[in-house]
């Protein structure tokens, strides 16, 4: 009967940080709960009414006490705020060496694709000890990608890419949940995360090669769609050079500067006019409705990998999803 868990598995580098803050807050909560309980119940018993004629003294208040119980909680919440912001930043800053996984939420499943092009549904295989970055989007409503054992969660919002990352520390099987209500089978939109030893992971990854790698598929699309005609990389090109672009700041015609991240690349394919690079004309046609989410992710993965001329695929960030078009429904 009492063999149920009270505390979730700690299976990522983030988990211990989150739990440390959690225990600190529990300690604070227990302290103040007991303080208030003892204060209230103790005083209510000590000063219980003994006769109906009692006339308690009029105590108006005390500025000193008011300041005490304003400033001490203020100090405590300040500490919590700084600590929690610190944890938050370590949860959102993706390490440079992270391998990439693409996840697309669709009612009611998670479609996951690895950088090699390998796909899985409601399952996610990752190596232990390696940071993994997940890029999320949705084909329909808002979902949320939640792995309790890793203490990570992020919404998958249609029309935009959100990212999250984790580094598993323990091999095993863990829950993957959808945490944002998405309709009939919301509670069935669950899966399993398998954390494997790197060797086993490599074996699993190489086990059944499902077609070309993500970036490879993206390269083929890049050629088929004749992107190369404009994005040539020489001085006369009509489109900006894409090699080595990813992660760099881009100066726009509007004077703004944006960072060339996944969302920017996706937007530039789907809505090329939204952000025009300085020195170029808005002549690129839109590919909205022509490319599936999956193909978009392949292209983005390929462009991410175009770092200088030589770039081996293993380091090329991956993307993945199997999905119909994002565009016109």
């Amino acid at each position, binding site marked *: 009967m009492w063999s149920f868990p009270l505390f979730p598995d700690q299976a990522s580098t983030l988990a211990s940080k989150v739990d440390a803050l959690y225990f600190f807050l529990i300690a604070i909560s227990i302290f103040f709960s007991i303080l208030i309980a003892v204060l209230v119940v103790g005083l209510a018993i000590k000063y219980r009414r003994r006769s109906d004629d009692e006339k308690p003294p009029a105590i108006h208040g005390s500025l000193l006490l008011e300041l005490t119980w304003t400033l001490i909680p203020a100090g405590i919440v300040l500490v919590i705020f700084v600590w929690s912001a610190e944890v938050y930043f370590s949860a959102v800053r993706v390490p440079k060496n992270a391998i990439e996984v693409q996840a697309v939420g669709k009612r009611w499943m998670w479609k996951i694709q690895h950088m090699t092009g390998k796909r899985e549904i409601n399952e996610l295989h990752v190596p232990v000890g390696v940071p993994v970055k997940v890029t999320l989007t949705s084909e329909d409503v808002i979902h949320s990608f939640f792995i309790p054992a890793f203490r990570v969660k992020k919404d998958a919002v249609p029309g935009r890419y959100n990212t999250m990352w984790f580094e598993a520390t323990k091999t095993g099987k863990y829950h993957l949940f959808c945490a944002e209500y998405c309709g009939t089978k919301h509670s069935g939109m669950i899966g399993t995360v398998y954390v494997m030893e790197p060797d086993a992971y490599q074996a699993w990854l190489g086990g059944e090669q499902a077609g070309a790698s993500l970036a490879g598929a993206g390269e083929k699309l890049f050629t088929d769609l004749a992107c190369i005609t404009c994005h040539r990389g020489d001085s006369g090109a009509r489109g900006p050079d894409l090699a080595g672009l990813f992660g760099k700041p881009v100066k726009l015609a509007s004077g703004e500067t944006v960072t060339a991240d996944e969302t920017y690349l996706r937007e530039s394919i*789907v809505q090329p006019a939204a952000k025009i690079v300085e020195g170029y004309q808005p002549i690129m046609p839109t590919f909205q409705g022509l490319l599936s989410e999956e193909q978009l992710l392949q292209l983005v993965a390929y462009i991410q990998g175009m770092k200088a001329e030589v770039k081996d695929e293993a380091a090329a960030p991956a993307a993945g999803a199997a999905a119909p078009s994002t565009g016109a429904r």
Partner: protein
Amino acid sequence: MSSTHHPAFVHHFENLGEQKEAATFGMWVFIAQEILFFGGLFGAYAVYRNLHPDAFYYGSHHLNIPLGAFNTAVLICSSLTMALGVHAAALGKRTQIVGWLLATVFLGSVFLGIKVVEYKEKFDHHLVPGTSFDASQLHMESIEDPALLAKSQKAAQIYYSLYFAMTGLHALHMIIGIPIILWIAARAWLGQFGPEYHSPVEITGLYWHFVDIVWIFLFPLLYLIPKPH
């Protein structure tokens, strides 16, 4: 207190002065609520104009600026006649109150009539959001970039949704206001207002001025959108 014997006095107030203060203050609180009510739409407007500047430009281009400007003038005049009506009420001049209030009703009706003409135009041009919405009416061809064109044609529907929501809500406020003014005018005709008691005229005036001011914001925001970049 003589004011407690006035026929309009409501017994639960202390005196007529308190009653008048409560009514005026109540209308101000109501207007605060109205500002937030329109505020949700203004917020959505700000977000979407920022996201889709071209759609908003071309959408607004199709509105009838002369009619909108004329309507603005009509409403400003109606605010003036309303203010004169309140002034007449404070002086207790019965026929003047009724005259100015009727003038206000007339101007308000002119505004609504013109609005109907404008709405009909949009309807005929398939610019009412919904299944029959046809963005090709907006002559966006001058957008060179096909992607921006496609995006703007879709978002034009958002512009028109906001146009109809905001002007429609505004018109609804006028449609509610006009019968109230007529009712107040009738009470004025019966001689219910004088220097001592005329707060219904005053708070109706406050409401009417608020409705006018909303339009003063709506007109430039919806009609007078400059070309982006």
